[in-house]
């Protein structure tokens, strides 16, 4: 399960990149093996982005960015299967252009159709644990909750819901959208996510390769911290040096 996820837990998006050369360097530095591409925003047969991704040795995760209805997203997913020769699809059905948040009703309908057609469906969803569980029950291969709106850089608005989602589903959880800087990515992993998808926070930073390195380290740190088991939060201090054995007089 989840063998499509990069071993290091970092998935990159390509939107917003200033140049192909800078994007290529960021991908190399990130050490990712999976990069998402909007079918509607690239020429699947053309030069440029796709040959570069091929050269970089990463797998392409097509997405349905720009779709507002289930029907539109399903059609776009079918075209992506043809164009990229993969059953993997990052399913996006957007509710409105100001928030770019998912429309849960349309998303679930599209997911049902695509799962029935044999796609490996990775839906971009809200941070609603009930909707996430419905998507998993439908047969989605992972769920990808938004931390906050796409491109906002506001981080994880409701960390508790991300933890609830982690406990509600048996499929991988990928934090998608809203990451602003490295600490947000680390937090996502500490909350139990299996991977983080980052586009704008890297591509629109002043130095994308440096930010890609920061994100790689942050994801690794967050994953290690999760595995190591954090200490409980307390109201009052607890001295780190025990007072047993201290000489008293």
């Amino acid at each position, binding site marked *: 399960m989840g063998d499509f996820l990069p071993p290091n837990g970092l998935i990159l998006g390509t939107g917003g990149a*200033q*140049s*192909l*050369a*800078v994007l*290529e*360097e960021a991908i190399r530095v990130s050490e990712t093996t999976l990069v998402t591409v909007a079918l509607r*925003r*690239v*020429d699947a047969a*053309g*030069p*440029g*982005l796709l040959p*570069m991704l091929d050269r970089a040795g990463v797998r392409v995760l097509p997405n349905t960015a720009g779709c507002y209805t289930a029907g539109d997203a399903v059609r776009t997913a079918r075209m992506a299967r043809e164009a990229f020769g993969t059953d993997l699809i990052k399913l996006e059905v957007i509710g409105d252009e*100001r928030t770019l948040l998912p429309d849960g009703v349309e998303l679930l309908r599209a997911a049902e159709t695509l799962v029935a057609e044999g796609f490996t469906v990775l839906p971009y969803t809200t941070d609603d644990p009930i909707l996430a569980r419905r998507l998993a029950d439908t047969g989605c291969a992972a769920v990808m909750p938004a931390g906050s709106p796409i491109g906002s850089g506001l981080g994880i608005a409701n960390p508790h819901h991300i933890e609830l989602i982690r406990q509600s589903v048996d499929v991988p959880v990928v934090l998608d959208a809203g990451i602003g800087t490295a600490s947000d990515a680390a937090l996502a992993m500490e909350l139990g996510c299996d991977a983080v998808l980052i586009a704008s926070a890297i591509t629109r930073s*002043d*130095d*994308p390769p440096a930010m890609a390195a920061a994100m790689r380290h942050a994801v690794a740190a967050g994953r290690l911290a999760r595995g190591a088991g954090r200490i409980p939060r307390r109201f009052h201090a607890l001295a780190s040096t025990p007072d047993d054995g201290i000489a008293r007089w």
Partner: protein
Amino acid sequence: MIAVIGGGIIGLSIARSLRARGAEVTVYDPEPDGTGGAWHVAAGMLAPGRESAFEHPRLESLLEASLALWPEFAAGLGDVGYDTTGTLGVALTADDHVEAAREWRHQKLQPLTGSQVRDREPALSPRIRAGVHAPHEVQADPRRVVAALRRALAGRIVARRITDLGEVAADTVVVAAGCGTAALTGLPIRPVKGQVLRLRGEPGLLRHVIDGSADGRHVYLVPRADGEIVVGATQEERGDSAATAGGVHDLLRAALDLVPGLAEHTLTEITVGHRPGTPDNGPLLGRLDARTVVAAGHHRNGILLAPITARLVADLVLTGSDDPFLDDFAPGRNGCA
């Protein structure tokens, strides 16, 4: 005998420089009177800062150096709409402002309040949040530039499509074929589609070039003296030539959000062009082999870079001089192989 492959603004500018220095030059273009080049769609904003923030580190220097050559370049061509009023950068919403402020800081421009921006350009929407004035940015009309270059090279432009550089009889071949350079040389140049609109109304609605964003949609408005306003541009990683409803809608919506009075203008043109893009967004300039020189891949900056490209290539071909810029933008450089 020197052959220049490509009769767009780059090829023609190079040919003109070579001829001015006494060389015998022939330009080859499939349509010497055609409108297929990126120049036909381009707005002609000569704005070095805007284009280069986080790209090729030396591109900004090249753009500045070419801007300095523009007054002389324009003067040699007659009236090409060269206008030094300057650019107003504007941001509509608070979100647009925080995004634009990064660019403005990078360019070291002094921020203006919404009222200060509208004092300079009263047709702007009262909703505009903030702006900057970039007095050094200028504009020229690329269509007039190319018309003037064609006149200057009358009789030296041959209507012929070159598909193999071997078929050209010349001692030196300069490939300046924009997106077509990829097929002729194998260099990594790709088409980056842009949709551009032209509106027309009473002259005088706008004096400055407006470079703004409205609810996350970036748009520029370039007013010509005759009442034409160029509205651009989408930037799409595609090679097709379709004008789309979404592309036109986004441009018009941003334009009308920033300048509501444009609603009364006539929509006179919807054009689609292809910028010749390179991996690091810088042009490819220099020698490919003993006989072949390339000057292509100017992406969004072909109009601005025409004067310096002409000078660098003419120097290289006629004197063998190797300007440091030719090292920075050599074809085959790191990341552009």
